[in-house]
C-alpha cells in the first residue's frame, strides 16, 4: 500500500467532508488507486488471516458456517413468475425444438422489438420481431450481440455496500432510512439519475416517487443521446418532438452529417425503407437519390449518390446556405468551402424539383440549429405530412439532459445532494470531463448505483446493485414511433439482479414489488381493463392458442425462424394460466405473444415552424478555430462503452475502418500526409489544457483537418474483455463541446501503436469484383455486368455435372442495398458458435468470422466511392477446396452445399489456401472457451462447437435448413420459399441477403439470380459460386457528375 500518505492532506479532507464520513483506513480516505484495488479483491477483510495459521483456521470455520447457513437463508419464497420444473411437460415444449418469445430491447431511448430463440429455457439467439413496426423482423448489431451480454461472466453478481456483500433487503432498509429522514424536507436532497427512460411504467414510477418527494429531482443523462435533435425540435417548434421520416416516400434525400441508416432508434426502419427504393428488380424510375454531407464517414454516406466531406463545423454554414436558397425565413447563406459551393445549385434544384417527395435529415452530432434548419427546410419543401411527420417523443420525459446534468453536478458540489440513486448508466466514465463528476459524486453522502457491471461509477458508490439484463426482466418500452412493447424475460435473473422498476418500488410506500406486477398494473390502469378475473361460472373461453402463422410477417421471411416450432405460448415465465382468465390477461397474453401493444403508436402532430428561430442562434457559432477539429462519435461497435465488455462487438471489424479491439483517431489521408502521419502513429491532442494520446488511422473520404474520436474505450472497470483496451476520448469531451471540438493542437509523439485491422487493403486493384454503373449506363446497357474482360468457361468439368433433383440452395446478395451495418456478421457469430480470438490473433490474421463485409474504395482518396461486399462461403459448385482435401472432410452434398465435416478434418489448411475467396477459418489454437459456465448456455445446440486444429466456414446455416426440412416432412410438403432464412439474411435490415432454392424458379433467390445485374465473383476461375452478387447501380445527378466521368469510374470498378 501507499506509504507516502500525506497526513495533512488527509486531515484536511476529513475536515472538509460534512456529515458522517465512513473510512476504514488512511488509504480509504485518500482514495488511492491501490486502495481501490485492494478494496475489491476477494475478502479483503480476511486476506491477512491467510498468513496467520490460527487466524486462517478461524476464518475457515466462519466460512464453513456461513456456507452452511447460506443454505438456510436460501429458503425464501419464490415469486410466482419464476420457472418451475416440469411436473408434466408443457405441451409446446419439445426438447431440441427452440421456442421464440417476443420481447424488446431498450437502446438509445427507444425500443427495438425482438424475437428471442430459447432452447430448453435458455435464450440463445436474438431475431427481430416481424410484428414490430420499427424492426420488422430485423435487428441491428447491438441487439444481435445482446445475447452475449446476458451471459457475460463479468457482469456484477452481488449487491455490495463498500465492497461487502449485502442483501437487497438491507439496501432497501438503508435507503428507506435516508428517505424517511428526507420526508420532512420533501426529498430536497434526493436525486435520481437515469439514462433516457423509454419505459412508460418506469417513468410513471419515478413520477410517483417525485410526487412523494416533490423537492427531489429526476435527471436523465445519455452520453450519446439525441440532445441536439431534441433541442433542435424545441428551437424549431417550441416543443420536444420526434421527427418520423418516411424515407421510402422520398425521391431526394439530403443528409446533413446524419447516419440515419445505421444509427438511432429508427435506423432499421430507415434502412429498410431506403433499400426499398434501391432495388432494381422492377421499375427503374423509382430509384431515389441520396446526397450526404458529412464530416466523419458513415455507412449512410457510403450509400450516397453524392457525398461531400466537410468539417463538422462547416456543415451548419452549408445547411444555412441551402435553407436560404430554399426560402426558409430569416436565414442568410454563409460562406461555404469551394467544393460545397459547387454542390448547392444542383442540390437545391433537385430538392425543389421534388417538393413533397424529398427529405432533409440532420445528424445527432450536429448542433440544434442544424436540426431546426432541417425541419424548416422540410417545411419549406412541403415535406411535412408527406415524407416527414412529427409526433411526441418516444422517451417518456424529454428534457435538456446536458443542462440537467450540469445542474445536478452543481448541486452535488454545493453539498445539496444527500442521496443519489444512479439507475443505470456510467456517468463517472461518460459525463463531460469538465463537470468532474467523480469529484462531485464523492461529496454525496449516500450514493447507490444500479448497473450491469461493477463499473467506474459503481466503484465510487456506496451501494451497488446488479441490474437485470433486459432478457431477465419485466418491463415495457416505446419504440421510435411510440408503439409499446412489453419486455418479457427469457430466463430468471442469472445473478439475482434487480430491475430499475424493482429498485424504485422497493423504496416506495408499498415496498418491493416484482417488475411483472408493476408492468401489468400500470397497463391495466392505462387501458382500463380489469385484472380481476370474472367468477368462474361466467368465465369466457380462454384465448385460442395462436398459431405460428399469426406471427408470420407479410414477407414470410420470419416464418422459418420458428422452424415449425409449436405455437408460441403466452408467457414463458408466468405461472401456468388458471382459468378463468381476466379481461386484462387476455389482452396481456396477446401483447406478449405479438410483442407489441396494439394502437399505441403516436398520432402525428400538426406543427408550425417558429418564425425567426434561426436568429436565436448566431450564424457560424461553431465554425471557429484554425487548428484541428475533433468530432466525438459513438463507437460503431461498442456505442458509448456500454457494450465494451462484449467480445463479439470488440472483435467485430468496424464497418468503415475494419478496426477491432481499439479505437483510433480517424483522419483523412490528405490531412495525415500534411501532418506527416501514418496509421498507427500516436498523436497528442491538446485543447483547453486537456490532453489525449491516441493513434491515428487513415480513413479515405474523411473530412479534412478533422479527427473522429469514438467513445466507449479506455474503460478501467468494464470487465476482462474491455479493461485497458483503446483510448478514453472522454478526457477531451466537455460540456461546451460535447460533439465538435475545435482548435485542437495536434503533436506527433513519434510513438506508434499496433492497431488490429481485418482488412489492410483498400483498393480493388482494378479487379472487377464490385461492378458498378450509373442509372444512365444501366439503362443504355442492361447487360453491362456480363461484359467483362474475364469470362467464365462454362461446361468445363472433369467429373461431369451433378443433377440436382430436389433442392439446390443458393444465395443472392444485393449490393445495391447493403449498407455494411454489420448486423449479419454478429448474427452469424451468434448463430454458429463462432469464437472470439482476441486482438493479438486478429493482428495475425486469424479472426474467425464466417461472414465478413469487405469494404473497397474507388476513385479519389479524399472522397471515394465506398462499397460493401458481404463475403461468406460461396458454396462453389466446382469447389476448389473440395478436390484438395486429403481426407474428404469438405464435400459437396446432394443439395449443392459445400459441407464441412469437422470430425473428419485433420487441418491441413490446403482448402483454405485453395479458396479464392479466403472465407475458410482455421482454429489455429483452442479458441473456444470450454470452461466458462455461463458462456456454455449461450451456444446454439444445433451447431457443433469446433475445437483446435479444425477448419470451419459458413454452412448456409445448414441447421436451419434441417429444421425446415423436419417441419416440412411432418406436414408432408416441400420446403417453401422463405421457410429457411440464414442467420445473416434474417438479421439484415435491408434484406440484401436472400437465400433459397434455386431449383424453384419462382423463389426470391431465383428471381434475383435472373436479374441482369447478377454476377458471380471470380467466375472466370470456373468455381461456379452459388452465392452471387447484384451489381451496384448508382443514381447520380448528372449536373454534379457528368456522364463522362461516370464512365471512367465504371471501367475503374
Amino acid at each position: 500500500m501507499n506509504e507516502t500518505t500525506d497526513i495533512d492532506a488527509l486531515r484536511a479532507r476529513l475536515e472538509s467532508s460534512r456529515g458522517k464520513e465512513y473510512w476504514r483506513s488512511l488509504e480509504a480516505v485518500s482514495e488511492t488507486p491501490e486502495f481501490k484495488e485492494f478494496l475489491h479483491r476477494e475478502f479483503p477483510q480476511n486476506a491477512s488471516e491467510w498468513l496467520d495459521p490460527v487466524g486462517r483456521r478461524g476464518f475457515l470455520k466462519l466460512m464453513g458456517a456461513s456456507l452452511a447457513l447460506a443454505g438456510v437463508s436460501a429458503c425464501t419464497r419464490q415469486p410466482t413468475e419464476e420457472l418451475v420444473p416440469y411436473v408434466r411437460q408443457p405441451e409446446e415444449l419439445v426438447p431440441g425444438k427452440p421456442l421464440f418469445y417476443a420481447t424488446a430491447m431498450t437502446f438509445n431511448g427507444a425500443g427495438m422489438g425482438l424475437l428471442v430463440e430459447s432452447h430448453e429455457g435458455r435464450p440463445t439467439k436474438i431475431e427481430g420481431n416481424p410484428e414490430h413496426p420499427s424492426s420488422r423482423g430485423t435487428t441491428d448489431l447491438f441487439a444481435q450481440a445482446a445475447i452475449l451480454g446476458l451471459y457475460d461472466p463479468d457482469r456484477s453478481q452481488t449487491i455490495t455496500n463498500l465492497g461487502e456483500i449485502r442483501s437487497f433487503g438491507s439496501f432497501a432498509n438503508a435507503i428507506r432510512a435516508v428517505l424517511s429522514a428526507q420526508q420532512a424536507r420533501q426529498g430536497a436532497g434526493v436525486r435520481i439519475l437515469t439514462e433516457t427512460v423509454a419505459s412508460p411504467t418506469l417513468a410513471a414510477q419515478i413520477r410517483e416517487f417525485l410526487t412523494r418527494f416533490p423537492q427531489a429531482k429526476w435527471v436523465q443523462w445519455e452520453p450519446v443521446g439525441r440532445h441536439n435533435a431534441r433541442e433542435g425540435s424545441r428551437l424549431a417548434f417550441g416543443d420536444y418532438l420526434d421527427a418520423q421520416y418516411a424515407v421510402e416516400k422520398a425521391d431526394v434525400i439530403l443528409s446533413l452529417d446524419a447516419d440515419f441508416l445505421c444509427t438511432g432508434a429508427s435506423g432499421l426502419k430507415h434502412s429498410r425503407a431506403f433499400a426499398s427504393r434501391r432495388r432494381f428488380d422492377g421499375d427503374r424510375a423509382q430509384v431515389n437519390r441520396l446526397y450526404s454531407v458529412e464530416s466523419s464517414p458513415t455507412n449512410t454516406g457510403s450509400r450516397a449518390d453524392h457525398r461531400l466531406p466537410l468539417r463538422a463545423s462547416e456543415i451548419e454554414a452549408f445547411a444555412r446556405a441551402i435553407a436560404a436558397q430554399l426560402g426558409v425565413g430569416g436565414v442568410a447563406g454563409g460562406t461555404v468551402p469551394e467544393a460545397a459551393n459547387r454542390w448547392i445549385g444542383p442540390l437545391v434544384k433537385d430538392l425543389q424539383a421534388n417538393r413533397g417527395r424529398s427529405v432533409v435529415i440532420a445528424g445527432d452530432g450536429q448542433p440544434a440549429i442544424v436540426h431546426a434548419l432541417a425541419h424548416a427546410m422540410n417545411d419549406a419543401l412541403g415535406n411535412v405530412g408527406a415524407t416527414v411527420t412529427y409526433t411526441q417523443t418516444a422517451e417518456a420525459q424529454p428534457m435538456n439532459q446536458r443542462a440537467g446534468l450540469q445542474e445536478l453536478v452543481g448541486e452535488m458540489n454545493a453539498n445539496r445532494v444527500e442521496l443519489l440513486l444512479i439507475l443505470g448508466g456510467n456517468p463517472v466514465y461518460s459525463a463531460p470531463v469538465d463537470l468532474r463528476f467523480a469529484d462531485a459524486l464523492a461529496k454525496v453522502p449516500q450514493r447507490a448505483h444500479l448497473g450491469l457491471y461493477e463499473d467506474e461509477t459503481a466503484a465510487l458508490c456506496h451501494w451497488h446493485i446488479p441490474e437485470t439484463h433486459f432478457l431477465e426482466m419485466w418491463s415495457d418500452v416505446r419504440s421510435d414511433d411510440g408503439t409499446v412493447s412489453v419486455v418479457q424475460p427469457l430466463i430468471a435473473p442469472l445473478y439475482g439482479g434487480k430491475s430499475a422498476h424493482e429498485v424504485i418500488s422497493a423504496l416506495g410506500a408499498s415496498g418491493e414489488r416484482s417488475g411483472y406486477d408493476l408492468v401489468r398494473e400500470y397497463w391495466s390502469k392505462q387501458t382500463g381493463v380489469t385484472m380481476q378475473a370474472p367468477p368462474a361460472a361466467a368465465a369466457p373461453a380462454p384465448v385460442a392458442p395462436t398459431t405460428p402463422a399469426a406471427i408470420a410477417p407479410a414477407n414470410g421471411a420470419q416464418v422459418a425462424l420458428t422452424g415449425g416450432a409449436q405455437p408460441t405460448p403466452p408467457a414463458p415465465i408466468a405461472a401456468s394460466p388458471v382459468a378463468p382468465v381476466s379481461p386484462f390477461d387476455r389482452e396481456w397474453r396477446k401483447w406478449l405473444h405479438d410483442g407489441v401493444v396494439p394502437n399505441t403508436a403516436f398520432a402525428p402532430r400538426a406543427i408550425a415552424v417558429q418564425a425567426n428561430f434561426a436568429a436565436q442562434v448566431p450564424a457560424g457559432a461553431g465554425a471557429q478555430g484554425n487548428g484541428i477539429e475533433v468530432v466525438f462519435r459513438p463507437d460503431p461497435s461498442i456505442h458509448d462503452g456500454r457494450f465494451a465488455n462484449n467480445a463479439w462487438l470488440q472483435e467485430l471489424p468496424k464497418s468503415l475502418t475494419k478496426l477491432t479491439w481499439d479505437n483510433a483517431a480517424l483522419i483523412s489521408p490528405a490531412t495525415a500526409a500534411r501532418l506527416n502521419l501514418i496509421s498507427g502513429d500516436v498523436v497528442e491532442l491538446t485543447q483547453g489544457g486537456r490532453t489525449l494520446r491516441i493513434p491515428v488511422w487513415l480513413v479515405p473520404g474523411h473530412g479534412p483537418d478533422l479527427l473522429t474520436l469514438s467513445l466507449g474505450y479506455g474503460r478501467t472497470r468494464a470487465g476482462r474483455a474491455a479493461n485497458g483496451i483503446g483510448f478514453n476520448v472522454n478526457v477531451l469531451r466537455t460540456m461546451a463541446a460535447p460533439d465538435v471540438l475545435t482548435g485542437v493542437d495536434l503533436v506527433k509523439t513519434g510513438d506508434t501503436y499496433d492497431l488490429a485491422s481485418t482488412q489492410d487493403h483498400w483498393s480493388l486493384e482494378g479487379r472487377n469484383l464490385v461492378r458498378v454503373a450509373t442509372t444512365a449506363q444501366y439503362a443504355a446497357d442492361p447487360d453491362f455486368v456480363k461484359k467483362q474482360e474475364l469470362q467464365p468457361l462454362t461446361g468445363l468439368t472433369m467429373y461431369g455435372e451433378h443433377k440436382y433433383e430436389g433442392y439446390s440452395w443458393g444465395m443472392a446478395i444485393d449490393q445495391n442495398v447493403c449498407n455494411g451495418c454489420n448486423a449479419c456478421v454478429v448474427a452469424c457469430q451468434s448463430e454458429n458458435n463462432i469464437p472470439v480470438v482476441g486482438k493479438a490473433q486478429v493482428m495475425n490474421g486469424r479472426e474467425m468470422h464466417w461472414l465478413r463485409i469487405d469494404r473497397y474504395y474507388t476513385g479519389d482518396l479524399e472522397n471515394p466511392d465506398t462499397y460493401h461486399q458481404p463475403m461468406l462461403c460461396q458454396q462453389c459448385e466446382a469447389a476448389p477446396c473440395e478436390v484438395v482435401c486429403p481426407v474428404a472432410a469438405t464435400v459437396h452434398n446432394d443439395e449443392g452445399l459445400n459441407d464441412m465435416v469437422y470430425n473428419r478434418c485433420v487441418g491441413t489448411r490446403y482448402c483454405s489456401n485453395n479458396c479464392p475467396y479466403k472465407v475458410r477459418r482455421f482454429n489455429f489454437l483452442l479458441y473456444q472457451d470450454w470452461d466458462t459456465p455461463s458462456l456454455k448456455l449461450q451456444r446454439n445446440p444445433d451447431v457443433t462447437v469446433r475445437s483446435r486444429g479444425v477448419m470451419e466456414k459458413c454452412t448456409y446455416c445448414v441447421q436451419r435448413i434441417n429444421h425446415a426440412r423436419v417441419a416440412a416432412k411432418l406436414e408432408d410438403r416441400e420446403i417453401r420459399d422463405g421457410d429457411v432464412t440464414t442467420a445473416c439474411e434474417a438479421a439484415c435490415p435491408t434484406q440484401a441477403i436472400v437465400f433459397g432454392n434455386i431449383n424453384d424458379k419462382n423463389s426470391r433467390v431465383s428471381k434475383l439470380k435472373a436479374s441482369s445485374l447478377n454476377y458471380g465473383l471470380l467466375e472466370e476461375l470456373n468455381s461456379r459460386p452459388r452465392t452471387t452478387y447484384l451489381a451496384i447501380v448508382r443514381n447520380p445527378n448528372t449536373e454534379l457528375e457528368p456522364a463522362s466521368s461516370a464512365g471512367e469510374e465504371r471501367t475503374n470498378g
Partner: protein
Amino acid sequence: MAEALDHPHDPLAGMSTDGLRTPAVIAPGHDFNSVTDKIAGIVLTKRTPIGWFFGFAIAFAFLLLLNLTIGKLLLEGIGIWGNNVPVGWAFDIINFVWWIGIGHAGTLISAILLLFRQQWRTSINRFAEAMTLFAVACAAMFPLLHTGRPWLAIYWLFPYPNSMTLWPQFRSPLIWDVFAVSTYGTVSLLFWFTGLVPDLATLRDRAESPVARKIFGVFALGWRGSARHWHRYEMAYLLLAGISTPLVLSVHTIVSFDFAVSVLPGWHATIFPPYFVAGAIYSGFAMVMTLAVPLRKFYHLEDFITMRHIHNMTKVMLVTGMIVAYGYVNEAFFAWYSANPYEGYMMLNRMTGPYAVFYWSLILINALMIQLFWFRRVRDNVALLFVLSLFVNVGMWLERFIIIVTSLHRDFLPSSWDIYTPTRWDFAMFTGTIGLFLSLFFLFIRFLPALAMFEMRTIVPEAKLQGDHH
C-alpha cells in the same frame, strides 16, 4: 549429361593426373588395404575425435530444441507458428519441400549415376544416400506436424479398411504426397542398406569390440563375400537403382503438384514439375557439397573425395541451377504473356511487394551467383565452394518461401490480403530439423563407413589391373 561430365569407360580413370587431364577420382598410391584401413578406421577407432563431440553437441542441442517445439506444438496447436489466413502454409511446407529437395541428390547419385556408370559417384554415394534418408526424415515430419490434428492425420491419410468405409480423397495432391514420400523413403532406405551390407561385413570382421562385432554381424546379414553373394548383391543393387531412378523425377514432381494443382496464381503453373525436380537436384548437390567439404577436410579424405568430385558436383549445380533460373524467367514471362491480371499482379508483387527483398536475393543467388561456377578458379577453390554451397541452400529455401508465401498472402480478393511473419517457434522448428539432420549425420559418420569401402576398392588401380569389376 553423363558424357559431359566424364567418360564412363575410361581405362585410365583413377590413374595419376598430369595437370591437363581432369583430376582422378582417387588419389594415387592407394591399394585395397589402404582404402579399407582409412575408411574403416574412422568407424573402428577407439578415440573419437574431440571435434566430433563438439559438433554433435551443437547438433544435439538443436535436436532438443526440435523436441521442445514439437511438444509445444502438440500441446497448443499450430497457432504457435505465424501461419494465418490467407497464409495457411508457411515455414512448415517451405521446410518440407526444402528437405525433400535436398534428399534428391542422394538418389540421383546412387541410382542414376550408377546406371550411367559414373565411377566418380562411388566416393560420395554412401554419405549422399545417408543424407537423403536423414533429409527425408526431416521432411516427413512436416506433412504430419503441420496439420491441425496430427494424431488423426497420422493414419487417416493412409487408405486402410475401416468401419466408416471411408477412403482418403484420392484427388488431393496431399494424398499423392503421402505415397510419393513414403515410397521414396522406403526405397532410399533399402537402397542405402543394401549398399551397406558388404561394408558392414568388413566392419564385423575388423571390429575388436565384441558388441560392435555382434551388431555389425546382425546387420551384415551373414555376408561372406562369396561369388554368389556378390552376384545377388549386384543384381539387387541394380534393380533398386532401376526402381529409384523414376522416383528421382516422381517425388518432386508430385511435391510440385501440391502447388500446381491449385487455382492460386503463382502456384497454378505447368512449369512446376521440371522446375521443381531441377531445383531439388540443385539444392541436393549443394548440400552434398556442404557436407563433403568439411568431411574430407576433417577426416583427411582428400584422397578419396578429390577435386574431380568437387568439379563434377559444381557442374551439376551449374546445369540444374540454370534450369531453375529458366523456371524463374518462364514464370515471369507467362505472368505477362497470359494477360491474366491475377498472375500479373502476383509477379509484380513478388518483385516489388513486401517480400521483394527475398525475391531479389533468390534471383541473385540462384540465377546470378551460380554463374561463378563457370570459372575453373572458382571450382578449384574448395573453401569458396563451401560458402557458395551454403548460399545455394539458402537460395533454394528462399525460392520455396517466395513460391508459398508470396502467392498466398495476396491472392484474388484484395480484402483478404495479409502479411505473414514467422514466430520464434517457426525458426525453432526449422533449426531443430537441421539439428536432427546433423545429429543423425554425426552418428552416421561415427558408426558407419561414410564412404563405400568395397566400391572404393574397385576404383583403385589394383582393381583395374584385374579387370573391370562389372
